[in-house]
């Protein structure tokens, strides 16, 4: 509430500064009689900038220095026996802060705490007053400076536009910073993991058995990537086996056969599948698809576990259908009409045209779309967390429980942010692997799709 009032007051002050700049530029224009270079609004904005930036600098300085100074003040009042004991120091400091804020403290209050609290609240008052005073002075100074510069030939618009451009560039830089942040944080933690475990053992190990983190033991378990990677690959293959035929055939039907009415009805329905959160798919797999597949397996005397690579793969395939179908739809509709007309002219039926002309022409684009779908399946987490069974063993049987890279990241890192043991650091090595795999898939896929588009432009 308090902050809201402060923000409101600041906004009112800034709008006053804006009005001042606008009216000042009008009066300058009237007095000189010359046409101004910039519209009054730009002069107003410039005054606001000159007012806000110095005040903000003062505030930042306050934020940086005030905690250290008040900590020093409190520390100077602590008697030596308290200052020597870190536990007692912490209690004393929190008590002093409570007294200073007017909340009070339980029990008898030693005189030094009262004195410290008084000094602390005195300092806080002065600091706050100084902050308000200095910020107001800096703001007013800036505003007056900007006001004095208002002149018919002063290029206020250009200055304001540079300021806006700086903000725009900063926003674009955030996207880059995110990637840099991902690469640096994941890479540095992964490198720390490789100081515990030999990279060769990680990348080519066939046993995943991390044990629990116990401090000071030499035995730290085995971190073999292969079983997890194989689980991921197996589930991805099953998912693509489900998604590619259904997705591709839907796309062909929608773009080549369906009338506009049917399209209007079927397309959004399929796209609903894309909007459903993956946790919902996971739950669906766990309580509906898993038991169903298990029952189906039992009727043909096949041992299918309810949570298995098959369950996770099938449900993930369902999730990817709309992804495959909408990407393929885009790509098929980009094949030039002239190719279709040529094929019909030679007497081919529609399905022959699709199979022998359109699909070969669209193949590169469709492959790109499939690669994007694969990348999505590889990085999918919640479905496999719930439905793959979480058993990191190397098996070729899709009816058994497996584990994947993403599941293991969740298992190893959840609730643990003390990144000191290989057991939690391994999550970053796995994350790095995942990032590199999906990055390669994406780069290749995006390149192929782009080349394909250029071909028909």
């Amino acid at each position: 509430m308090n902050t809201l009032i402060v923000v409101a007051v600041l906004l009112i002050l800034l709008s006053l500064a804006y009005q001042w700049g606008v009216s000042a530029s009008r009066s300058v224009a009237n007095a000189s009689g010359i046409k101004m270079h910039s519209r009054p609004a730009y002069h107003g904005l410039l005054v606001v900038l000159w007012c806000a930036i110095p005040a903000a600098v003062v505030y930042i300085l306050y934020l940086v220095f005030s905690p250290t100074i008040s900590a020093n003040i409190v520390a100077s009042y602590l008697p030596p026996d308290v200052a020597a004991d870190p536990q007692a120091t912490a209690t004393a400091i929190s008590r002093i802060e409570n007294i200073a804020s007017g909340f009070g403290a339980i029990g008898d209050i030693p005189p030094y705490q009262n004195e410290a609290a008084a000094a602390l609240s005195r300092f806080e008052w002065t600091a706050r007053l100084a902050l308000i005073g200095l910020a107001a002075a800096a703001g007013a100074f800036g505003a007056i400076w900007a006001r004095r510069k208002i002149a018919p030939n002063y290029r206020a618009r250009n200055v304001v536009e540079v300021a806006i451009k700086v903000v725009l560039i900063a926003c674009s830089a955030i996207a880059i910073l995110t990637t840099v942040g991902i690469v640096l944080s994941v890479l540095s933690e992964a490198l720390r993991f490789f100081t515990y475990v030999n990279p060769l053992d990680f990348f080519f190990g066939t046993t995943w058995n991390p044990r629990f983190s116990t401090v000071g033991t030499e035995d730290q378990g085995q971190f073999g990537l292969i079983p997890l990677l194989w689980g991921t690959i197996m589930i991805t293959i099953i998912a693509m086996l489900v998604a590619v035929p259904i997705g591709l055939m839907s796309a062909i039907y929608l773009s080549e056969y369906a009338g506009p009415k049917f399209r209007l009805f079927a397309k959004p329905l399929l796209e609903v599948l894309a909007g459903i959160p993956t946790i919902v798919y996971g739950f669906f797999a766990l309580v509906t698809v898993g038991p169903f597949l298990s029952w189906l397996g039992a009727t043909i005397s096949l041992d299918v576990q309810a949570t298995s690579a098959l369950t996770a793969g099938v449900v993930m395939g369902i999730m990817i259908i709309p992804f495959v179908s909408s990407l393929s739809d885009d790509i098929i509709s980009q094949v030039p009409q002239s190719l279709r007309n040529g094929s019909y002219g030679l007497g081919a039926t529609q399905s022959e045209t699709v199979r022998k002309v359109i699909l070969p022409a669209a193949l590169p684009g469709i492959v790109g779309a499939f690669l994007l779908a694969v990348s999505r399946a590889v990085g999918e987490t919640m479905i496999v967390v719930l439905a793959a069974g979480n058993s990191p063993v190397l098996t070729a049987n899709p009816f058994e429980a497996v584990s994947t890279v993403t599941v293991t990241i969740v298992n190893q890192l959840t609730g643990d942010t003390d990144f000191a043991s290989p057991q939690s650091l391994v999550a970053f090595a796995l994350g790095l692997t995942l990032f590199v795999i999906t990055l390669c898939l994406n780069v290749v896929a995006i390149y192929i799709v782009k080349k394909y588009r250029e071909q028909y432009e």
Partner: protein
Amino acid sequence: MSSATETLDGVDGASAARSNRDIIERRLKARHRAEFRFRMIGLGAIMLGVTLVALLFGSILAKGLPAFTQANITLNVTFDPQVINIPDRPVQGDLSDADYREEMLAWQRRLVFVNWNRIIQDSLAKVVPAAADNARDAVGMVASNERVRLRDMVRDDPSIIGSTKELDLVAAANVDVWLKGNIDRSLPDSQQQLTALQQEWSDQLYERGVISMDFASELFTNVDSRSSPATAGLLGAMVGSIMMMLIVMVVAVPVGVMAAVYLEEFAPKNRITDLIEVNINNLAAVPSIVFGLLGAAVFINLFGLPLSAPLVGGLVLSLMTLPTVIIASRASLRAVPPSIRQAALGVGASPMQAMFHHTLPLAVPGMLTGAIIGVAQALGETAPLLLIGMNAFVASVPGTPMDQSSALPVQIFLWQGNELRNFFEARTSAAIIVLLTVMISLNALAIFLRHRFERRW
């Protein structure tokens, strides 16, 4: 070709022509059959997709809708002064805040140790006399958090001690399961969740109307609970999710739009811009769990922000949504015809003015659609939140974005793992229905906006 040799073998021209015609007609039939088959496969693929959508929604609705009603026991609860034997509530008077709080806490501790079970047992004994002699069975009929509710009533208004009130108490989860038939009633008593006595009471009270199925408002007004599953609700998770969505809207949308404006309009066409472009496309396809790793390593480990805080979750989801918003905003900026920009430039506007006064306003509907879809996506995301500690059990409503909190999809994840399967399967589905309702409304809003404001040039 076989048809060619057959023609040559013909006796005279007329019969050769007929047989030729026969062959072609036969082949044509086969080709048309193939055409029909292909078409049907396409239609079948779409129908399969639509069936899967129906199946998913059907199974979740069938499981979840019953959970919106819940067994309630209406009892006349007497706040017996003999049982609630506590001193008067302390008054602040001239005590300091800290001392008053201490006294208040001491008083509330006394309140906690009141035998609330006894009060529930006595109330139940009024409708089933046998309850007076079977304390354990009687207390097990009512959700254990209802004791807390009675306690809070006394805490807020001690004057009700001695009075009798008619209250709707939530029945225990096992009673709910029993009455809804979610457990096999023919199982022997040793495998039942309710004792023989409780089974008898449940059926009897349900017939007499003392236990009734009411709308489960606890789902929306309570926070999660471990000890009392029947009263576990979504309030904390919903507030956490709303906070995170607000953060995404405040952070990702403006930053994304400004980045899009810069990249589309002002960025020089050079290698750095190309790099940003490739980077954004890649970022959009990076698995969400990798963003979770970034959040764990940077926001929590490096910046020292608290675990499970909606602030951290919101920032991670913002970074994840940013590429979606940028791509959608760029597409809608590109859709504005260049003639508008050129006209503005022609009458002397600067590029910045042309952008902000003319192009941007026309692109707003498309940007809005993209932003809403991005926010909806962020709402359903689970995996990155698990890595920043949001899977912690939190039984409180977050007051600020720095408090511990849960989120809707994470709550679904936690509930699906609860051991009390036959109660929580329905509860989880109900939570999914709530989540999907919000997401579908958001998407419907986006579609509505697109249709309402879309302009074809």
